[in-house]
């Protein structure tokens, strides 16, 4: 049985690591969590996942990404994985709250 993919991308490795860890703890049994610190590499990975017939449930763009590349990343992600929900992570106080992702799935 294959599980759908949650993808998180951010330019800041520390933020990404925190988000990745939180996502795995909360959703790791039901989703394949993939994190990438490069938008280009993430798009390549999305292509590979599509070739492998994987369902991508969610693509998250982190707060450390500049606005324009972030928007471009999400647009291109949509063209590769049109069924995936797309999420902008906005800066805020405290640690990421993965429970907030749940309503998006």
């Amino acid at each position: 049985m294959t599980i759908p993919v949650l993808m998180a991308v951010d330019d800041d490795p520390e933020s990404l690591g925190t988000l990745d860890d939180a996502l795995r703890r909360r959703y790791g049994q039901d989703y394949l969590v993939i994190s990438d610190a490069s938008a280009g590499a993430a798009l390549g990975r999305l292509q590979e996942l599509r070739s492998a017939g994987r369902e991508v449930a969610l693509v998250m763009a982190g707060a450390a990404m500049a606005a324009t590349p972030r928007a471009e990343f999400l647009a291109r992600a949509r063209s590769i994985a049109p069924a995936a929900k797309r999420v902008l992570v906005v800066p805020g106080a405290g640690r990421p709250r993965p429970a907030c992702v749940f309503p998006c799935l």
Partner: protein
Amino acid sequence: MNARYRQGPGGPGRRDRTAAGHAASDHAPVLSGYDAELRRLNEVLRRAAGVQSGDHVVDVGCGTGQTTRQAARTAQAGSALGVDISAPAIERARELARAEGLRNVTFEHANAQVHRFPQERFDLAISRFGTMFFDDPVAAFANISRALRPAGRLVMMVWQAHERNEWDVAIHQSLGAAEGPASGASGGPDPFSLADPPAVTQILRAAGFADVAFTDVREPVFYGPDVAAALDWARGFTCTSEILKKLDPAAAARAVGRLREALAAHLSDDGVWFNSRAWIITARGGHPTAQAAST
């Protein structure tokens, strides 16, 4: 465990009884169980893995740990971790490592598909027929990829297709299951699930690996020093016992007779051997996944 037919306790398990309790230390004069069967293939994997002193190695589906101990000896100041979902196999692996006095080897009873390995810990992931039975291969290899350091290597041995493996063809023809591998027919775990290079390449790329390459390996497998021992070994395969269970006693006896004949036809001066075909699959990790600020 290097199973072919059963995700036994330990994923790649092939037999109802695991190698646990049967496998001897590879320092012992006589190997038994899988270690004996796969000894020629084992040497090919050892060379391909090319463990270096100081390497940290993870051995996926390690069974009773022959390949893990082998890696640990070469790694010296490095380390080797073996994981397998068979608890008895892991217990046996620990006993054998203790008996040998190896201090840089550890074993964990775990499913490599979901186990929380330390991130970017290992230089090398190896497997001897321990990766064919994952429920979700992409998820499993992605998990292994995360455990590798950037540009860490994956070196694994898997079976090529059923029809290229004389041992499987002979067994199934003997048992009257000429339509194909019993595992496929029964819908059970497929020991040949990683036999197709394009499909495997796709899986590994989706999992974050690059530079996927295949090397054709042709080495015989050893079934026993004589026909009786070989028959005992082959009857221990889950596929064999499953087929025999479905037959009435007379038909089962005839099938066993045919199997004995097939084994006898492969008896040489040094025991019963069958040809086999396997792939050594290599890939490079280090897809810039989660630079994962270890949190």
